[in-house]
């Protein structure tokens, strides 16, 4: 799903949908290539979305009614701008909250010393 010079794909699997929803929430409307470039820029090149993988997820979000498209013709080609729907905005908040909670839990498990002394 990703080409990640820094992170393994197992770490990032499942977060692309949240990333897309968050970017659309912040930037209003965006097209596919723009989303890829934005992720690359914000992550300072640490997360490079394998571009083709973006569209299956965008089409899934479209089918679920989370995003809507607006078509703009540029020369002979059609550019589709994706925008969050009210349903998508609600889902985005929940998805971000869930991810934050998950990261917090991971932090507690992995970075906190949970070693207990054995009972005597």
């Amino acid at each position: 799903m990703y080409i990640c010079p820094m992170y393994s794909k197992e770490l990032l699997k499942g977060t692309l949908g949240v990333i897309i929803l968050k970017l659309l929430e912040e930037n209003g409307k965006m097209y596919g290539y723009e989303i890829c470039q934005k992720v690359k820029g914000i992550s300072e090149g640490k997360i490079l979305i394998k571009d083709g993988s973006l569209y299956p997820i965008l089409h899934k979000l479209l089918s679920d009614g989370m995003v809507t498209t607006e078509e703009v013709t540029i020369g002979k080609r059609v550019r589709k701008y994706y925008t969050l729907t009210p349903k998508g905005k609600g889902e985005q908040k929940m998805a971000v909250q869930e991810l934050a909670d998950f990261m917090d839990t991971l932090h507690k498990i992995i970075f906190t010393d949970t070693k207990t002394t054995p009972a005597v």
Partner: protein
Amino acid sequence: MISEKQFEIISRAIRHSEIADKALQDDLIDHFCCFVEAEMQSGQSFENAFQAAYEQITPNGFGEIQQETLYLLNHKKRLLLNQCTYLSGYVFALSTTIGTFFKIMDLPGLLPYCMPECWAWPLFSCSCYW
């Protein structure tokens, strides 16, 4: 900006690929064009830029994108269909077992209700509907 001829080359390559969905084709054509334009602005030739676009956007071919899209779109339906199949199998086995039991115990009055045919058609119809 790429020329009309270059656009036609990109467009033809995607329209004749494994991708059948028109909306997905449009998305990829625009993506390829943007990528190629950016590469050409940094001094690459069209041929090299187009090759680089292939490697970056579809390293495992167009088929993978089509399959991934279909998988994501139909995942829930397929899951539901599987559940229906398992459920019908379970009811079929259960009714056969109970029917056999009644037959052995000589309780013929209950037998018709436990025959698999009683349950098979409604369940089969449900599976087809989903």
